[in-house]
């Protein structure tokens, strides 16, 4: 009997532990990509973007012409290409339930497939200041490729304003 109650106690603790462990995940923001092939192949040239930042249709389009990837060849062999595509599509903004992914999908016109993350209306509008060539007298960044330059905690999927490396004021002011 004692043993049974101990087991129940253990089960309850495990259940609570699982819920507590899951809580930060639910609030962690944008999923950090963990697929080894994707991180290795695409991360060789730029940060491996979270699949949640674009709709499935965008990933399909991008991976369908990797031999001309924004002017560069990112050509992969057929099997690597299909495994990377499968991963991106299965974890795209359409399939994710983070608030960011929902906002991305709501902002994209039905069926549209932007190929740049900065062409997603929700993301583009948030970055309007920094995308403006005459941004408040600041030099416009040459590229917005590496999110971590401004979003310091991007390696944990955190894109919130509290973790900017530039002040919100400098960022928003126009």
């Amino acid at each position: 009997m004692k043993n049974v109650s101990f087991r129940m106690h253990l089960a309850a603790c495990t259940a609570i532990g699982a819920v507590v462990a899951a809580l930060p995940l639910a609030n962690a923001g944008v999923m950090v990509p963990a697929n080894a092939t994707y991180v290795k192949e695409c991360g060789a040239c730029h940060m491996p973007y979270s699949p949640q930042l674009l709709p499935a249709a965008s990933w399909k389009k991008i991976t369908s012409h990797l031999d001309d990837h924004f002017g560069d060849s990112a050509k992969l062999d057929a099997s690597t290409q299909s495994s990377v595509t499968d991963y991106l599509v299965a974890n795209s903004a359409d399939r994710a339930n983070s608030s960011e992914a929902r906002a991305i999908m709501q902002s994209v016109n039905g069926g549209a497939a932007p190929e740049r993350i900065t062409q997603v209306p929700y993301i583009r509008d948030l970055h309007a200041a920094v995308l403006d060539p005459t941004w408040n007298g600041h030099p416009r960044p040459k590229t917005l490729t590496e999110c971590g330059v401004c979003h310091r905690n991007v390696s944990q999927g955190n894109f919130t304003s509290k973790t900017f490396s530039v002040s919100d004021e400098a960022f928003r002011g126009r």
Partner: protein
Amino acid sequence: MNMRRFLLVRLPVALCLAAGCGAWAAPVDELLQEYQAQGGKDFNAAAGDKLWHQFFKDPKGGEDRRCALCHTSDLRATGKHAVTGKAIKPLAPSVNPERLADKSKIEKWLERNCKWTIGRACTPQEKGDVLVMIRSK
């Protein structure tokens, strides 16, 4: 015959002979043989070095491109992707032993980067010269 000795010594040797020892050859040597079969000859580091520093005009944007643009003139140094700014680990095997160790990786990057830098596929001669040059660093 001692079974253990057969498995550890005789069998691998027999398999190696049967397969032409291809799997054990250095990836660069294997590629140089292929480039030779495709018409390349007398691969040399000086020619590879010259190509490395040669400028090629991008027909679309008009800017000058060359290998050293991203990988720098010093192959032992860390490079920087010209578009994304991401760091590129040194190409010289003397400081980065991961380089030239994987045949398919070498071919993948030669194909991609010749296209971007020169605007066409490299010839077997050019690829051989550049590989011999990188190996010497």
